[in-house]
């Protein structure tokens, strides 16, 4: 019997307004692996990640989680994933700590510890509209320290993050895969992570009629 990957994507296609977004995608991610999705702007990286989170429905193809199509194990799958999108879901009117309290799904209990992990100690009670873009991004990233999710989907997590923050996040990803988690992320940065696997989104050949 072949080894079961944590997440397998088979011939995944997505159509919008009768246009294919990208060439059918196949890849598999196993525990302890980080998969980087590459591709030029507009090639459908965000669409792919949103398909993986079930926010979008694929037009054809399958997403298989631990041997089962996700349509059959929806609850288990959604309980095990964490998605960090372009829009970070950080509420400007709430403080950093309040934001985290809504988003936390396990892991570190204290928002204080999670915020100090992303070097935002002392900003707990500052409303997020008073934070810089990079700091707001860090608030969103602090979620990664407050979750038990096995499978992380990160869409351009390095946007607006400084060099120090990038290495901090790389460390966080390494720790996560060491614990047996898996990560699928899209970024244009070159990551300093050993064993990084890559897959690419290729814009569909006939960007047009079906």
């Amino acid at each position: 019997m072949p080894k079961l990957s944590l997440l397998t994507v088979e011939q995944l296609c997505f159509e919008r307004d009768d246009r294919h977004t990208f060439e059918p995608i196949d890849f598999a991610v196993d525990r302890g692996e980080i998969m980087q999705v590459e591709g030029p702007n507009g090639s459908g990286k965000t669409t792919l990640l949103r398909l993986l989170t079930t926010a979008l429905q694929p037009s054809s193809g399958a997403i298989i989680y631990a041997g089962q199509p996700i349509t059959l194990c929806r609850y288990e799958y959604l309980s095990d994933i964490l998605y960090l999108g372009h829009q970070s879901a950080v509420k400007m009117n709430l403080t950093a700590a309040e934001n985290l309290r809504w988003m936390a799904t396990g892991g570190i209990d204290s928002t204080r510890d999670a915020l100090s992990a992303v070097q935002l100690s002392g900003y707990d009670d500052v409303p997020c509209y008073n934070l810089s873009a990079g700091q707001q991004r860090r608030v969103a990233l602090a979620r990664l320290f407050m979750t038990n999710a096995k499978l992380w989907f990160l869409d351009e997590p390095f946007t607006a993050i400084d060099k120090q923050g990038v290495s901090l996040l790389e460390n966080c990803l390494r720790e996560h895969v060491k614990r047996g988690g898996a990560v699928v992320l899209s970024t244009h940065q070159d990551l300093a992570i050993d064993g990084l696997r890559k897959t690419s989104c290729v814009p569909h050949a006939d960007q047009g009629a079906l």
Partner: protein
Amino acid sequence: MASGFSAYLRRDLLLAYRRRGDAASPLIFFIMVSTLIPLGITPESARLAEIAPGIIWVMALLATLLSIDAIFANDYQDGSLEQLLISPHLLAMPVLGKTAAHWMVTGLPLTLASPLLGVMLSLPAQGYVPMVASLALGTGCLSLIGSVGAALTVSLRKGGLLLSLLVMPLYMPVIIFGSATVQSAIDGFAWSGPLAILGAMLAASIALCPLAAAGALRITSVN
């Protein structure tokens, strides 16, 4: 499951508290317009008393309509709606929590402020209790029905007009039985009948609207 309800109820109330100015605007609109009516029509109390139930109910409806599109729009823009949609729990409970928060921020203050407007519009004394009772039940219906329309139009850039067109026909029974409750009381008839129908509409809305809104969010967010 119930935690999704209370978590989103508390979250939306906290957010409304942080943006008190925005949250208070439906109430201010409600009070301002009702103040202008006697100036614009007539200060004569006999004629005002005749139209008072209808005016108060129309204002309550418009004030709700004014604020209902924000119920999901902010969450849609900052990405928290997407996070809600991919949570493994039943979507209808957080939606009900958000709708309840919307009612507490708009419908409930309107209901509590309505006796003041009754005074301004020279509402006859026997109309006050039915007015407060019918507004308490009816504004709940308005928030719940409005949440379905807001969910359907959340991904549209300019969904405001479409939202009004969608929910207005559904608001009609509410306003008919709402003002009928007050009118019956003023005319000296039993007013428990129309109020009971409002109660039934509220019960049906609580059962059905969150499910419909959750379904609508799933459909519209696919874009």
